[in-house]
């Protein structure tokens, strides 16, 4: 079995409007590695994340997504979660009336397919809260309801830590965070790091990569990955902007 998240020649469009967003994305994230996907606004980065998680507002027209060698294209979002996928949303959705902790326990039970004891659940929560330097008051609040931007992002990381996915996609988790919040979020991701965890870090800025050093960096433009490299690629982008990569896109490297 191949232990990796693989995106193979993925083409996709918005289901309603038919607008084509992904135009042949190829990407492999081996388990145990963290890869960054960078690119300018409108490159299709967030769309890629949502499509991997199974967002029904997009339609895959060609290509495949494989988790450990198995196609997940036909699976519902919850089935994908049970295969070990997790998407930290760029804009976490507010669900009034549903307590953060109650939901998280339901999600953990759904993912594991069995009852999770209060003890075990509480244990997981405590570990996550400690790493994220957070207090329990966040647990009884309604899911993302009235959370600040920073709280929402931190809560996504807490969910990730409790659910322990095999492959996590972090969609611009860094955007809108001040430096302290960014460090806390990075701490959560780094705590997950290990041979059984792979992640795709979607970001617009190099800044977060100072705290989460990626194993590889991919640059996405106009619905394709146009170049890939090591962590140094992110620094180059920071210095030179996306203009020089555009040329790569045009020449079709």
């Amino acid at each position: 079995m191949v232990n990796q998240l693989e995106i193979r020649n993925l083409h996709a469009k918005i289901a309603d409007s038919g607008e084509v967003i992904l135009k042949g994305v190829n990407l492999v994230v081996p388990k145990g590695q963290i890869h960054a996907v960078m690119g300018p606004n409108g490159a299709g980065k967030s769309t890629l994340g949502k499509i991997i998680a199974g967002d029904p507002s997009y339609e895959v027209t060609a290509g495949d997504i494989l988790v450990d060698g198995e196609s997940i294209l036909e699976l519902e979002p919850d089935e994908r979660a049970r295969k070990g996928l997790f998407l930290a949303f760029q804009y976490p959705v507010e669900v009034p009336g549903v307590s953060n902790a109650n939901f998280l326990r339901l999600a953990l039970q759904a993912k594991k397919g069995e009852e999770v004891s209060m003890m075990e659940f509480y244990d997981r929560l405590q570990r996550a809260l400690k790493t994220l330097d957070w207090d329990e008051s966040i647990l009884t609040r309604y899911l993302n309801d009235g959370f600040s931007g920073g709280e929402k992002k931190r809560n996504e990381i807490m969910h990730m830590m409790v659910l322990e996915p095999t492959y996590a996609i972090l969609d611009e988790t860094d955007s809108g965070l001040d430096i302290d919040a960014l460090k806390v979020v990075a701490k959560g991701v780094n705590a997950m790091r290990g041979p059984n965890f792979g992640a795709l870090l979607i970001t617009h800025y190099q800044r977060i990569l100072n705290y989460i050093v990626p194993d590889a960096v991919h640059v996405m433009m106009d619905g394709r990955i146009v170049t890939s490299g090591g962590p140094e690629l992110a620094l180059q982008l920071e210095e030179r902007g996306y203009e020089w990569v555009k040329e790569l896109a045009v020449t079709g490297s």
Partner: protein
Amino acid sequence: MSDTLEIEQIGSEYKYGFVDEVKPVWKAEKGLSRRVVEAISYHKDEPAWMLEFRLKALEIYQSKPVPTWGPDLSGLNMDEIYFYAKPTEKRDATSWEEVPEEIRKTYERLGIPEAERKVLAGVGAQYDSEMVYHQVREELKRLGVIFVSIEEGLKQHEDLFREYFATVVPPEDNKYAALNSAVWSGGSFVYVPKGVKVELPLQAYFRVNTAELGQFERTIIIVDEGAEVHYIEGCTAPVYTTDSFHSGVIEIVVNEGARSRYTTIQNWPHNMYNLVTQRALVKKDAYHMWLDGNLGSKVTMKYPSSYLVEEGARSDILSIAFASSGQHQDAGGKLIFAAPHTGGSIVSKSISKGSGRSSYRGLIRVYEGAKHVKVNVECDALLINEESRTDTYPYMEIEDDTATVGHEATVSRLNDEQIFYLQSRGLPEDEAAALIVRGFIEPVAKELPLEYAVELNKLIELEMEGSVG
């Protein structure tokens, strides 16, 4: 899928839909007439004034037209309804052993005796037209708490009964209050003496077993000065192909400084017309809460109302309505402010699924001279499917300009982004939808006793199965 099929499907999921092998010991002939009213009164061995009252109410009923401002009632045929069915000779048994076995089994299946032992202060059980069981904890009896059937209330406490009966809801109030006044049978008579706080709820459980039967319970609750009580009513019936009818009248008097709460979990099968008048008179510095959950029935028209008649009186009305295909829940509430420094709120949460229709209908009236009234109305509607429907009819009659009146109304659809978000964390689509619905009603549901909140959640999960996607 056609509506009828869908309704049948829901009926098959309705877990209280079983029929008992119980034949009434006496049943009135079908339809409504002077003779039927006289027969009911005869079977109850009533004083002459009550028969007179009934007959006058019958005239009032006959003189009033069927209301056309609300849901369609044209399917309700009074000639096809039995107005009285006596399940057993013995009324108000005080131990379950005295209740005929078949009837007792039903209540056991519904978990009533168990709940009585664990979480209730007293239980009244109505089967068809009569209360077959009534019991309240011994220590409450010693404190003077009265909790008996309405019939026993009239027999044993006639003066107290007469002082309050039909004073809060007179027969002239509306057509169905008049009907109830003519043919009432069953219901509770509750009196909580001054300063007595009944900690656990009293529950009345209504079961209609006979097909095409109308159930017309009448309940009087008197909460004397400084006393406290929580009364809960629950209702179920078998699923028949023919329609049934339930039309209760509830009268509550909350005296100075008293607190009361009336909770309804109405889960009739989807062939029941449910037209109920519930009203509370709230006195000086007293408080009353209506918690009204309408999940079942074919048509419900129900607007619990509070009349705040003395200074400092307050009342909140919390309402949940769930309308599936073939159902029309016309619910809401009324707050009438007739004294200064009174206040209250109406919070209504409705969910419409399939071709179901829910309406919020509410009235806020502030009389001139009722100074510094504070009232807030919030009604939120959630639509599950494209063909689901909701309407809002908020009436405001504010005669005093010192009143502070707030009103907010929202209509939302089940949100795809919310579903995707919850699903991406591992919850199947149905469960995600049910969770969103539960969250939607949470501000009201959290006021329910735990057992009922759990039951409500189960019902919603059942209702939401296969409803999206």
